[in-house]
């Protein structure tokens, strides 16, 4: 069933995989040093170019009612924007890891990042269980490589082994969950599963038991990638044990994978199970954010602290997912929602937007740590940051901005992320005018979220306080001439401030993306276009839209 249209859609991913292969092969023969990073950057730009070509085509997902569905792919606006975001985040990651002084194992790192990005983009575009799983594994397996080559001491190896075994386990759990969905739906295609589940003839008692089981296993497998409780235990140990660059990678890419797959499966494949879904996600969300924030208060290792921070932020993300699921349970009463014309897409849009601003702030922080570290002396503890303001005034100013953004203080991007989540959560009661049962849950969720933001501020302030208020404990280090991490920091701070001051466009795109996933899925089997589905889309020229996207 693979035809040329499918291949055409996948060209950006193919470019990345080809470049990764080339770097692996060449790295085995020659010492590539910075050439690997240059090649990786070039492949990202080329992939971006091909993605841009898709923007300009008539079938561009930016146009209303013209999403490309081909073979196992369904590139709606959500998936398409996600692919752009993945490329930009990939750019920051490749820049961050491109260090001139690093040892000759570098090529594997750059190539593995490219493979992970390709895997993520596949997950973003996939509308089929097997392809989603393949994409997720394409993210996981290079991660093991990166973790092993990133750090050579015993702790690094321990971290890598820990991640390896738990990741394998979570993949197995995920696959087990997929098998239930396949068994009930009779197809690996999400739209087919949805069609089977929604037809009254097939709602047998078997499905009543198997679907929740399948969903719970799937959620468990994805929660590992999101670092949502109770699947978060590995994160603090692995982050602490690995290098700063790898910790930055782990705190971003798996989360994208988790959110993309979770949104796609939970919101499109299993109609009728949203009521169960939002309850589970809501409880997990509250537990995750509270646990992450509270435990982070006691951390003294900076990567461990950021690990708990990333756990907490996974909890915030799930707020948006819970909202999106709850919004599916009832028809909106009149013009519901509110924040944007996206209406029911607001929850998923808020979660996506939140993930975006979280990633820039987190990556920026890790890029700063990479910049401050040397191969023989990683920055590990909060004490090493003490008095940083005196030694590196600009770097500490940037880290302070990233911390304030993570804490959600205006006018930085993080504020709008929290605002969008809380706002979308408070709009949920609107979807159930007859059913007041939702209201206390989601108002409660909003209250817990903002209180968690306040708890979170406490440990972000500890980082800032260490940099600015404490006397320096480390000897002055020689100035480093690392362009990569500096550029990564520049990209991240531009995003954090830019999105902070002009969030409108990004919120809008995020919510329209969230809306696009909720449309009726394309009919199975053959490539076809959606002409008559009531798609909420935008009429802006694609060139402008993608320009705005790349600015982020």
């Amino acid at each position: 069933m693979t035809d040329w249209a499918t291949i055409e859609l996948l060209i950006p991913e193919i470019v990345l995989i080809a470049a990764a292969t080339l770097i692996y092969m060449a790295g085995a023969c020659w010492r590539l040093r910075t050439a690997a990073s240059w090649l990786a950057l070039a492949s990202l730009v080329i992939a971006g170019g091909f993605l841009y070509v898709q923007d300009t085509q008539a079938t561009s997902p930016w146009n209303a009612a013209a999403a490309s569905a081909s073979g196992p792919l369904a590139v709606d606006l959500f998936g398409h924007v996600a692919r752009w975001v993945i490329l930009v985040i990939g750019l920051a990651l490749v820049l961050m890891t491109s260090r001139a002084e690093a040892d000759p194992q570098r090529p594997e790192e750059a190539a593995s990042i490219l493979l992970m990005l390709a895997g993520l983009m596949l997950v973003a575009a996939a509308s089929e269980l097997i392809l989603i799983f393949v994409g997720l594994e394409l993210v996981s397996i290079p991660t093991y490589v990166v973790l092993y080559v990133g750090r050579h001491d015993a702790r690094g190896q321990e971290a890598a082994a820990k991640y390896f075994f738990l990741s394998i386990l979570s993949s197995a759990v995920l696959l087990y969950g997929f098998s239930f969905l396949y068994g009930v739906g009779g197809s690996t295609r999400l739209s087919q599963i949805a069609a089977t589940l929604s037809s009254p003839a097939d709602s047998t008692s078997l499905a009543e038991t198997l679907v929740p089981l399948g969903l719970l296993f799937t959620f468990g497998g994805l929660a590992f990638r999101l670092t949502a409780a109770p699947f978060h235990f590995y994160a603090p140990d692995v982050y602490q044990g690995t290098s700063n660059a790898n910790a930055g990678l782990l705190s971003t890419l798996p989360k994208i994978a988790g959110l993309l797959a979770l949104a796609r499966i939970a919101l499109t494949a299993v109609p009728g199970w949203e009521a169960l879904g939002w309850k589970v996600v809501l409880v997990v969300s509250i537990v995750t954010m509270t646990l992450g924030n509270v435990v982070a208060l006691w951390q003294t290792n900076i990567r461990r602290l950021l690990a708990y921070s990333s756990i907490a932020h996974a909890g915030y993300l799930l707020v948006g997912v819970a909202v999106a699921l709850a919004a599916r349970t009832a028809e909106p009463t009149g013009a519901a929602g509110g924040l944007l014309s996206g209406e029911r897409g607001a929850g998923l849009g808020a979660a996506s937007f939140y993930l975006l601003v979280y990633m820039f702030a987190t990556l920026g922080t890790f890029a700063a740590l990479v910049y401050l570290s040397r191969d023989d002396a990683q920055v590990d503890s909060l004490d090493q940051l003490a008095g940083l303001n005196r030694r590196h005034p600009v770097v500490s100013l940037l880290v302070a901005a990233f911390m304030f953004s993570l804490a959600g203080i205006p006018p930085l991007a993080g504020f709008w992320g929290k605002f969008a989540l809380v706002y979308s959560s408070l709009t949920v009661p609107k979807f159930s005018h007859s059913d007041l049962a939702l209201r206390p849950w989601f108002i409660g969720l909003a209250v817990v979220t903002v209180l968690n933001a306040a708890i979170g501020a406490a440990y972000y302030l500890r980082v800032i306080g260490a940099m600015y208020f404490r006397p320096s404990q480390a000897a002055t280090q020689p100035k480093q001439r690392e362009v990569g991490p500096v550029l990564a920091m520049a990209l991240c701070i531009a995003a954090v401030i830019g999105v902070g001051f002009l969030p409108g466009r990004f919120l809008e795109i995020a919510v329209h993306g969230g809306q696009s996933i909720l449309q009726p899925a394309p009919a199975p089997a053959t490539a076809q276009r959606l002409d008559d589905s009531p798609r909420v889309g935008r009429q802006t020229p694609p060139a402008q839209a993608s320009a705005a996207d790349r600015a982020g």
Partner: protein
Amino acid sequence: MHHVLLATIFLPSAGALVAWSLASRGKAAVRLCALVTAGLTLALAAHLVIQYMLDHGTLRGDYAVANFDWLGEAVKIHFAFGLDGLSVWLFGLSALLTFTAVLVSWDAIVDRPAGFYALLLLLETGMIGVFAARDIILFYIFFEFTLIPLYFLIGIWGHEERRYAANKFFLFTFTGSVLALLGLIGIVLWVYNSSGELTFSIPQLHEALGAHPIPMDAQHGYLQLWIFLALVAGFAVKVPFVPLHTWLPLAHTQAPTGGSIDLAGILLKLGTYGILRFCLPMLPDATAMCMPWILWLAVVGIIYGALVSLVQSDMKKLIAYSSVSHMGFVILGFFALNAISLQGGVLQMINHGLSSAGLFAIVGMIYERYHTRQISELGGLAKRTPLLAAFMLIFTMASIGLPGLNGFVGEFLILLGTFQRAWAEAPGPLGPQLIVIAVLAVSGVVLGAWYMLWLVQRVFFGPLKEAHVSGSDAERIRDLSWHEILALAPLVVFIVWIGVAPKQFLEPIAPAVTQITERTTQPLKEYYAIEPDHAKPQAKALAATAN
């Protein structure tokens, strides 16, 4: 006029950038840049305030409105600014006190002056922005943003316990304000639900809530009460209400003088301004329902703040606790919900800003000379520094409410309004309660005179006592320098001006306050059978037409 308003808001930020970029040029260049920026901002603000008084002294709507689309068509959060009777004086006060703060930091800040002045100017943008914002989210953004510069000001340039103080200040107020954000979103969503129009504009929300008030019945789960509580949670920490005040003495004492001035003079008012802007006019039913509770809290604050002030040994802490007491008066004035007491409350915000800024400046000046804030280590300073003592005496008199100075006008109006509520207008069970509250508040005035005069007596009169300084060093201690006089003199001018001619200052406040009493009259009648306010014929007439 809106260009002037925008310039006033963002000029300090531009000045902050310039000051920061001048870091390598040394202290003199940086502080000159800060002084020029603060001075220009003050001139712009003064121009706006004077024009406001000349053109629209009794205007009910907004002045110098600037409204720009910010987040695009879909997200209707606007970049909207304007002034009205509630904000115009606070707006001017922010510009004035930043000017004062720059001048009192003139010699005090030696370490990293560029950062200090840049943050002080950024703080000014934040403060002015809060008072000028006409969009509910924009208000919140400025409200929260003020935390960042002040956090660094306390944490880097503060005294011994600065780190603890900075963190406590940040976390207390941040926790409160995130709850307030929920309340603000709640208001927007209710208006959206009831009118079908999504708006974040404060005047539009105010209007829409007049037509469709937020329900206050069991059927809707007491929605208005919950929103009210969320907002009060945020603003009460800032004011601060008594059980939530513990961050205040610490932050005030540990902050550098310039920070203390802005903190006491303006930032506490962000809380009362929020209550005035959102709670009273937009949530009148919940306001009326909670009125006795909050009045009790206010009176507890007045008495508690005064009693704790009495026993302080640290001058700065004494003045910090006196702020708790004085802000209690402001809250008392607000929640007596009487046109007179409300006017007094609004004016008292300005009065407290002027006198507490002056007092903190004086304590800072004494600290610069003697490196101590302990009352017991000082005495008879009037002999050494007569001019400083004279200024201190004026600020003290203003603070305790000597007739002829500003504090008297504010406190008198607040108490008058409260007594009027208690005797003339509140039959039933509320009446005796209000009488007790009003009498207790009067005792707070007496206590205030006690601790302030006692402070002045111990530090400035009696035998000369100068700890840590002796012999020729003591001889070298100078009276006020030119920049210190320049810092204090404008405060004294306004203290006397308001005291002598309060009518001018009350003029723009009165119509703005009417907008609040219009809304609260009916709920008060429903909850406590309080008759419409006799002192305001317009309010009565409006209430009559509404019925």
